């Protein structure tokens, strides 16, 4: 088995497969969903296979390198994954599969819809495997276009402005990213992440930039951070998110929150921290402030929402804030063994949180879609009550997902948050303390949702609220099962990503 797969360009295959699927889906009309399901299942299988082939020493494996794509611009075809990348691939595959599964009521141009979803999946795969800026940027932009159209054409009543805002914000961030990297290229003639990381670690990068352009390294770092800050999102660049998440059709929201937001965090881990580590360490305090703000304000805002989708949207902001917290907290210069352990914990936590939040949030939005369908379009928090009675399975499964989001031990949401706090407390106890507020408020929010939607007296018109069909809970069961599994045996993931974490921390210099 090992030898058979040794020569195959697995990563290219993985990236190209959804594109081929999209081409087929465009012309498949009503059968597009079937095509999409097949392709996403195949991608998941391939992603899991790649996950199993990640090198155990934490370095980058499955490398595909072709040097001379556009030599004059330093553009090379360089792909590879380590544990982090492979985890993101698996996450993307799972979330896309969930999204396609949830989208069984797309009547208007289904071929186009599923084609766009598959293109988006390809964009995700591409950006998680890229090791050269051009390739990475290509897929970063590639995922933007389908997302825009998915919101614009199948979204809710105010989808136009939502899509526009989404597009403009993300574009602006991309421009900042591109400019910063162009500047780096002009100074170093390299666009390769590995080379640039090595240069950053040895200090050569800052020298080169200062020599060519002057003391602008900090501005380049800000530009890169801005690009990712919009995507994650980080306060105050998050304002596009609630509208986009709310107006997008739920399957698309699942993709947005489950996978696309992770592109931003991944970017911070793969690009920002390795290359601009020193600058991030210099800006650590303001960045931590912003991360904490994201956590706390996200939670507070969620508490104020009346639309279930917006509640979850802000809650996503909050959850991703923990990732940011962990990432910025570990940006401290040379440290002792204890600090290093904390750094490792924080990083592990952030990565785990990415994965777990992805699964959980996607599942939650799936549930919202089901509610919305059953209620004829309603999804206000006050529109329901006591749904536990007519739909016990529904309430049960959604409850599990909600508790996972809350961070209940035993479910997957807990592990990531725990590790993150475990790492951040020693490194930035003020930030950690304030962020605990976020935890508390989130708990309040989620419990409120459960209470208002599922418990209490059942209004007349919801007495016949249909429960989950067998097909639905069969689709959801693996996800819920995964939540339990990862909550109880996080080692499944941590075992593979910890070496990667150690390897990354060893190469980063702050």
């Amino acid at each position: 088995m090992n030898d058979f797969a040794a020569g195959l360009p697995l990563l290219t295959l993985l990236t190209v497969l959804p594109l081929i699927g999209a081409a087929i889906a465009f012309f498949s009309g009503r059968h597009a969903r079937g095509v999409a399901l097949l392709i996403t299942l195949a991608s998941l299988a391939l992603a899991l296979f790649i996950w199993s082939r990640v090198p155990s020493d934490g370095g980058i494996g499955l490398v595909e390198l072709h040097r001379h794509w556009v030599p004059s611009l330093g553009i090379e075809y360089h792909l590879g994954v380590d544990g982090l990348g492979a985890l993101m691939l698996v996450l993307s595959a799972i979330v896309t599969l969930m999204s396609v599964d949830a989208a069984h009521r797309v009547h208007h141009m289904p071929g186009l819809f599923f084609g766009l979803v598959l293109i988006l999946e390809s964009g995700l795969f591409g950006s998680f495997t890229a090791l050269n800026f051009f390739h990475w940027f290509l897929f970063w932009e590639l995922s933007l276009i389908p997302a825009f159209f998915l919101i614009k054409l199948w979204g809710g009543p105010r989808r136009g402005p939502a899509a526009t805002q989404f597009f403009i914000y993300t574009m602006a961030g991309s421009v900042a990213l591109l400019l910063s990297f162009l500047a780096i290229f002009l100074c170093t003639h390299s666009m390769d992440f590995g080379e640039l990381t090595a240069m950053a670690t040895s200090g050569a990068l800052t020298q080169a930039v200062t020599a060519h352009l002057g003391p602008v390294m900090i501005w380049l770092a800000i530009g890169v951070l801005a690009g990712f800050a919009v995507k994650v999102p980080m306060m105050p660049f998050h304002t596009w998110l609630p509208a986009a998440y709310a107006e997008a059709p739920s399957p698309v929201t699942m993709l947005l929150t489950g996978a696309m937001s992770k592109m931003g965090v991944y970017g911070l881990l793969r690009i920002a921290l390795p290359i601009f580590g020193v600058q991030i360490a210099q800006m650590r305090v303001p960045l931590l402030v912003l991360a904490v703000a994201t956590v706390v304000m996200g939670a507070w805002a969620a508490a104020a929402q009346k639309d279930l989708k917006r509640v979850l949207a802000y809650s996503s902001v909050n959850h991703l804030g923990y990732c940011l917290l962990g990432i910025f907290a570990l940006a401290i210069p040379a440290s002792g063994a204890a600090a290093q352990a904390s750094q490792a914990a924080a990083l592990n936590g952030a990565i785990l949180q990415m994965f777990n939040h992805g699964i959980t949030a996607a599942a939650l939005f799936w549930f919202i879609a089901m509610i919305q369908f059953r209620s004829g379009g309603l999804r206000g928090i006050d529109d329901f009550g006591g749904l536990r009675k007519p739909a016990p399975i529904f309430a049960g499964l959604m409850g599990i997902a909600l508790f996972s989001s809350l961070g209940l031990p035993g479910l997957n949401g807990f592990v990531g948050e725990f590790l993150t706090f475990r790492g951040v407390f020693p490194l930035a106890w003020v930030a950690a303390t304030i962020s605990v507020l976020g935890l508390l408020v989130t708990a309040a929010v989620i419990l409120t949702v459960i209470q208002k939607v599922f418990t209490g007296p059942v209004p007349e018109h919801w007495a016949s609220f249909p429960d989950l069909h067998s097909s639905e809970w069969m689709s959801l069961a693996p996800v819920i099962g995964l939540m339990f599994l990862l909550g109880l045996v996080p080692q499944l993931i941590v075992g593979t990503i910890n070496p990667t974490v150690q390897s990354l921390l060893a190469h980063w210099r702050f």
Partner: protein
Amino acid sequence: MLAWTIYISFAGALVAALLPSNKPVVVRWFALGVSILGLAHAVGGFVAGMGQGRNVIVDVAWVPSMGIHYLLAADGISRVLVLLTGIASVAGVLFSWNIDLRTNQFFAFYLALIGGVYGVFLSGDLFLLFVFYEIAIIPKYFLIAIWGSTRREYGAMKLALYSFVGSAMVLIGLLAAYVAAGSHSTGLVDLAHAGLPASFQMWCFPLVFVGFAILAGMWPFHTWAPTGHVAAPTAASMLLAGVVMKLGAYGCLRVGIGLFPHGLDPWGFTLLGIGSWRDVFAWLAVIGIVYGALVALAQSDFKFVIGYSSVSHMGFVLLGLMTLNQIGVDGAVLQMFSHGIIAGLLFAIVGRIVYDRTHTRQLDELEKMHLSRRLPFAAWAFVVAGIASMGLPGFSGFVAELQVLVGAWRANPWWAAASGIGIIVGVAYTWRALQKAFFSDALPTAHELESEQAHPFAPICWSEMAGVALLVACTLVVGVYPRILLDSIEPAVKALLAGGVQ
């Protein structure tokens, strides 16, 4: 092999003129056959020439007493541009499938224009280049004046006169250079090696450069372009923006920079930061980029948006030429190819697919027509074309514009900064046009739905699909694997910058 592109096109033009005008089907298929044959030769010549330097194809003494030779030669740049012409000519024929009026004369003028363009790109003799350059003017006039739309006679005359004035300037330079070099020869290589004095080059270069740059749409001589493009029928505007404007840029490169390199030297004094013709033309190019983009943003006619965007993109080409470094000029030539394809695609969609069905180009009216539902092919084709035009990676424009920017940065960072603004505005106007024309948010009223069903649009026919597919494929292939062209362009540019025409 490459020379046959010229002969086939002219022979085809002659035959097409003689075909009966009441049998458009015959004429169309004939023209398609001729242009495909030309493309085949262009591709064959391109592939055969890969990895080779400058090849002399034909060298026959034409007027021996004056040293004028019928000299055809091709280096990497010529081969790439001949390839572009081949692709654009086939696409243009495909998108003219619905021309019914005087079809034989239409395709006769069309093929004559194509023949002239092939000739310019393949000429190795300055006189011959000029002859082909001028041959291309008259068919343009008639194509627009007879088969065009808005203000066609005015647009055609303006275009013809501007082109003619530009070529008159080139003629003066040509005569002066010929005489100054001793009246021995008009070959490009001979003139480049003739050792023309620097003071002579200092005035001859701007004359010749401006003469060619008028056709390339350099600000402020660009005003013929939007009017002409809008007035022209679809195939003509595809060719005009796609290929003919590149004639001007090619002339700037091959003749202007190739023969009079010392014209770009510093003057010795600076005025407001401008110290040489290079600075002057670079700033004019930058102004063109930004101005074209800003004006495109304000247009209410869809075709004008594309017309001004052509001015803006050609500004990139001219800026790239003025950087005078390898990467900048590479980018300029690549942008010539890329923009040729993309502009062709944009005009095809706006003109043939949308306008021929909706009979309006006003964005406000198109907004009400819900074209994303009624013409999804056009909408999605425009999405792809728009993305390519914006310069998003994966399409040919990205690498080209990036190379121009890097080259501009190395030459003068301010140029790069200003053109960066142009790119951003480019995203804005493309997105605005896309939004307004195809993806407006309003849902149709009942009344509109009724009238839509009463007057359905003609279905997309195979020729339109084939044309779009051809052009999209080209921009994708070059975008994903730019080396397919860069490998030919880079050595040729290197030789040209190193000293004379090679």
